[in-house]
């Protein structure tokens, strides 16, 4: 994986020193809260309902065991012994003290981590496919490009005060697991007829209060133009993006209001001015960065493991895990393993310090020291030998992260909601827990098959509810929590925004409503191979409305 060079070390250390002094000045009264707030936000420090919250960047969701151990150490030493993996592949600590944050940032810098640009109107952590560098369907590892974008966007002086935050995602595979079409810029690696690498470029996707699917602006952007073209997009956005209204300030609104053709012309005009300048990516630089992400040496092994077959036949829980939590690896005899951070009835994305240490140990023992965090709030060991799966599974069971539910109904994305978040209008996590309890038996989950439920506790949509096959949005109505359901959303290569199915449900009734939807689906699907989303797309919302609200609803 990428290692900091001297420049990276010095800029992260410099920032840590700056923040230490800013905290000192704040506590001494030299800085007011109004002056300090933007400074702390630039370093990922929010003030939430109960306490401060520190959001630490995990660039493109990749980390090693040393870094994971450091996160465990921080949770144990400065927080309440847990952390929360987010939908931007980051981690949040929910209880740090202001006075401790400089020390936390110093500890993070020791392992080449920081909290820069995890908040504020800047370019945020670039997210990537969590199976990057391992997936069988991959054209190329997207992480070298994500790293190049990270270097370009870190403290980019021109883009430190954008109209609003800006999110970039990249996938190296045709099966989009990085939700690129709901990002401000979405990049999908592609090869042209000459076999060269480039990018399909989407602009103006996003969720929040105005969900939109990104519009394609380039079918094939050559590799060497990645930075110049990104800079051109950002410049056009920075110039024309609306600063008068926070709710209309994202680039998706600019795309919508300006029109794709005009905006594209603006981007191309800007690109023409700078494409031959310093931002042109030299081939040797891309190859140099790529070398950091060189895959571990993996021996080609038999594609079927006798050990796995024997255990599968004898152990239903293992069989369930194997059926759902593995992703095909490009090297035969290996696989990418999803460690479920969604225990039945548990809190999506939470990991204790002990679990983090276990994950670090397992990555070192079985996974070539590589760990990924998915935007679906799970942890992945990307390079595991099939023969090691039984032993790995036993360790996961002991740590409580062995649920075989990846992609199933209990693998729910949920934002922190009103249990933590100052912006939330309703709770998310308890709804996720109740759904998980309701559907959590192995047979029931497996019978239902692939079904992505995503829950947000307010209109800002951190829980990605718009792109859930079933989306749940928590609102407040007359002082009570109230949940609106959307159907048919998807964040993959066939992205779609879910449609509101009808009037919302009280907290007491929402899980029953989900069960009604699931039962309706089970009753009308043509076979087990027709997923909830496929069935919805075939029949539309009428049968689901009928089931929820009765005739004439």
């Amino acid at each position, binding site marked *: 994986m990428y290692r900091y060079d001297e420049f990276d070390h010095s800029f992260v250390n410099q920032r840590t020193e700056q923040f230490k002094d800013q905290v000192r000045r*704040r*506590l*001494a*009264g030299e800085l*007011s*809260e109004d002056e300090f707030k933007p400074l702390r936000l630039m370093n990922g420090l929010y*003030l*939430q*309902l*109960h*306490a*401060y919250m520190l959001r630490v960047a995990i660039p493109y969701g990749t980390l090693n065991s040393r870094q994971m151990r450091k996160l465990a150490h921080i949770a144990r030493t400065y927080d*309440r012994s847990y952390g929360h993996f987010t939908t931007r592949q980051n981690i949040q600590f929910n*209880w740090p*003290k*202001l*006075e401790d944050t400089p020390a936390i940032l110093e500890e993070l810098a020791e392992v080449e981590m920081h909290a820069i640009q995890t908040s504020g109107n800047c370019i945020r952590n670039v997210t990537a496919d969590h199976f990057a560098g391992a997936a069988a369907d991959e054209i190329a590892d997207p992480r070298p490009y994500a790293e190049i974008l990270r270097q370009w966007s870190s403290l980019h002086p021109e883009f430190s005060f954008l109209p609003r935050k800006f999110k970039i995602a990249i996938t190296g595979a045709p099966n989009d697991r990085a939700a690129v079409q709901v990002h401000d810029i979405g990049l999908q690696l592609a090869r042209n007829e000459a076999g060269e690498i480039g990018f399909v470029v989407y602009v103006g996707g996003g969720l929040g209060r105005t969900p939109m699917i990104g519009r394609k602006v380039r079918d094939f952007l050559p590799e060497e133009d990645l930075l110049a073209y990104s800079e051109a997009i950002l410049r056009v956005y920075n110039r024309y993006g609306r600063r008068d209204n926070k709710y209309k300030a994202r680039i998706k609104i600019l795309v919508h209001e300006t029109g794709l053709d005009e905006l594209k012309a603006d981007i191309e005009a800007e690109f023409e001015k700078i494409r031959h300048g310093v931002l042109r990516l030299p081939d040797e630089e891309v190859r140099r960065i790529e070398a950091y992400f060189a895959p571990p040496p993996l021996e080609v092994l038999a594609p079927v493991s006798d050990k796995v077959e024997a255990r599968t036949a004898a152990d239903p829980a293992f069989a369930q895990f194997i059926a759902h939590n593995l992703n095909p690896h490009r090297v035969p005899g290996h696989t990418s393993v999803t460690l479920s951070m969604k225990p039945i009835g548990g*809190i999506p994305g939470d990991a204790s310090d002990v679990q983090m240490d276990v994950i670090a140990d397992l990555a070192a023992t079985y996974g070539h020291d590589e760990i990924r965090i998915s935007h679906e709030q799970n942890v992945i060991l990307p390079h595991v030998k099939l023969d090691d799966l039984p032993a790995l599974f036993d360790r996961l069971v002991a740590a409580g992260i062995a649920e075989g539910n990846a992609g199933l109904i209990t693998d729910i994305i949920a934002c922190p909601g*009103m*249990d*933590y978040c100052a912006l*939330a209008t309703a*709770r998310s*996590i*308890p709804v996720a*827990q109740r759904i998980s309890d309701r559907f959590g038996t192995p047979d029931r989950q497996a019978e239902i098959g692939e079904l992505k439920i995503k829950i947000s506790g307010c209109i800002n949509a951190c829980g990605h509810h718009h792109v859930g096959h079933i989306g749940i949005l928590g609102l*407040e109505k007359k*002082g*009570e*929590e109230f949940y609106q359901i959307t159907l048919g959303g998807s964040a993959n290569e066939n992205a779609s925004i879910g449609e509101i199915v009808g009037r919302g449900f009280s907290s007491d009734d929402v899980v029953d409503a989900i069960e009604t939807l699931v039962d309706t689906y089970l009753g009308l699907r043509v076979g087990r191979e027709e997923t909830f989303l496929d069935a919805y797309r075939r029949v539309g919302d009428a049968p689901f409305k009928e089931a929820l609200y009765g005739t004439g609803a």
Partner: protein
Amino acid sequence: MKVITANRLLDGEVVWLGDGGTWVERVARAAVFDGKDAVAAALQVADQAVADQKIVGPYEMDVTEEDGRLVPVRLRERIRATGPTTHPDLGKQAHPVSI
């Protein structure tokens, strides 16, 4: 019935304005203000506490009395006053005896 709430600067702990300009960790011990003028005067006290680096982000909130104890009206404020409903072991609810 209104009380004034904020977060403590040093650790972010949820606090309420108590008697005599103190900041207390339990809503039950908050000072109650009735009427616009009383609330405005209390917010002035809070503004001074902001200037003195004690608290951040003060605002007024509604409370009611249940079984002789002050409790917030809105769910959001009830959660702030107790802790995450998903973690009974964390937040104020985990330390029933502290101030």
